């Protein structure tokens, strides 16, 4: 259950002609990894994520999941949207149940209903929203809505969880707390995560590997393996924020984020820019 991008190129056509978004991307994400795709806004990282989700087909190259080309959206690849994308007319529970095909418990048989109710309780417990079953999305904070969105992803029992800048609109304290909680969820529920962000700090505290993308057209610049620190999200966050090694890495990321593609990638646009 490996996610692989091989020689992926993609552009978007608009009034200004075709604008290259992603150039020559080769990346593979192994089972159980927590990979962070870091890059400036508009660099094509969400495009890559949407290819994995099956919403975008690459112009060139291919994106493979478990060795098969991704043909469209699928339940084994759950996506947590930037704006949570919960149905505003459904309660938290109904939103989660929608993901397993039953909107209301009472319509199904009793034994089945009990099992589903337990499932909902379990995923809400995992994301720390126990007892919020009947809350409506508009009654929740942005962070809580994202947690429901994660819970909705979890109940689908995906092999791959794709997260598209899930905490970009949150304040820093809340974001750091949710970063800890995402790591905890990943420790409790074994799965592969591909996490997109433009925040260096967020990238540093969550994943096991950081992949850095250049500004548009997005190429992969470099990557860093972080190892799995700590038994919990809190420990990981503390260790990484406090170590000098990570402070250096954060500076390095900051400098490299300005860069274009590495010269050996042969990206003509970038070679021109650096000249």
């Amino acid at each position: 259950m490996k996610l692989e991008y091989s020689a992926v190129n993609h552009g978007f056509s608009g009034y200004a002609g075709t604008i290259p978004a992603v150039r020559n991307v080769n990346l593979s994400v192994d089972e159980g990894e927590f990979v962070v795709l870091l890059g400036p806004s508009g660099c094509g990282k969400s495009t890559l994520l949407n290819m994995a989700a099956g919403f975008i087909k690459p112009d060139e190259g291919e994106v493979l999941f478990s060795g098969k080309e991704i043909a469209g959206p699928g339940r084994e690849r759950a996506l947590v949207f930037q704006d949570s994308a919960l149905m505003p007319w459904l309660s938290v529970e109904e939103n989660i149940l929608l993901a397993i095909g039953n909107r209301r418990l009472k319509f199904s048989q009793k034994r089945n209903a009990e099992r589903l109710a337990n499932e909902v309780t379990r995923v809400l417990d995992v994301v720390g929203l126990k007892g919020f079953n009947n809350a409506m999305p508009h009654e929740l904070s942005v962070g809580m809505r994202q947690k429901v969105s994660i819970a909705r992803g979890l109940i689908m029992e995906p092999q791959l969880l794709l997260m598209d800048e899930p905490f970009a609109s949150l304040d820093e304290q809340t974001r750091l707390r949710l970063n800890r909680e995402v790591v905890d969820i990943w420790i409790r529920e074994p799965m592969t995560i591909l996490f997109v962000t433009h925040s260096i700090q967020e990238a540093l505290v969550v994943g096991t590997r950081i992949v850095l993308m250049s500004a548009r057209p997005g190429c992969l610049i470099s990557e860093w393996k972080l190892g799995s620190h700590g038994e919990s999200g809190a420990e990981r966050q503390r260790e990484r924020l406090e170590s000098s090694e990570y402070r250096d890495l954060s500076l390095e990321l900051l400098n490299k984020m300005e860069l274009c593609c590495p010269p050996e990638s042969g990206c003509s646009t970038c070679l021109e820019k650096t000249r």
Partner: protein
Amino acid sequence: MNNNSLLHAAGLVLMVIIWIVLAVFLRNIQGKPFPYPWEAVMAIIHPGEASASIYLHMGASILRWGAGFGIAAILGCFMGIAMALSPKTGEIFSPLVHTLQLIPGLAWIPISLILFGLGNTATIFMIAVTAVSPVIINTRAGIREIDKSLIRAAKMMELSSYRTFFQVIIPGAAPSIVGGLRIASANGFRVLISAEMVVGTGIGLGYSLLQARWNLDYEAAFGTVIMIALIGLIFEKLVFYPLELMVRNRRGMA
């Protein structure tokens, strides 16, 4: 009773006061037979010997309006859905629908008379044809304006097209659809009264209004206007207000 209901009641009382002041002025200074509110109300309760009971007029009007509005609602929703789901269908019918919206209801009188002659069917046709375009336009817009990420979420969850339609698209478009029905019902109601004045069949509120004018029975004319307003108000409060509350409040829209 909350604060707003009190304010609404105050507005009504103010209107009645203005009416009385106006009546006093017009009667005593200009000598016009402008009726007082209570006279109009009495005319509703005890109609003249010659005219049918106001309740019969009301019943006939409501039935016609119901038929016309019902046709417009069902046809409009289907058309709107078809035009939203199939872009080609949408482009074919879009100019037609927008033109239809510009035609005032009474302009249909000659056409509906040729098609259906004097009678109920002509009135119902006029109501339906003026009420249908807001339903189509709002249904189509409501579906097209559903947040794209909700549709993506439905795809990600691999919902069947049946579920996507009934559990994402229709509830997503519901506030806009209800808004369209509301406009349609008001349009239809206005056309109904005017149509009854022209294509009358001897019964209906519009006919009764015209008859009152011919008889110089101003009390009855004012009474009929009150009944028309009351029917509109009751329908608004009993049907659309709860419907709107249902689709808007649940999702936290003010």
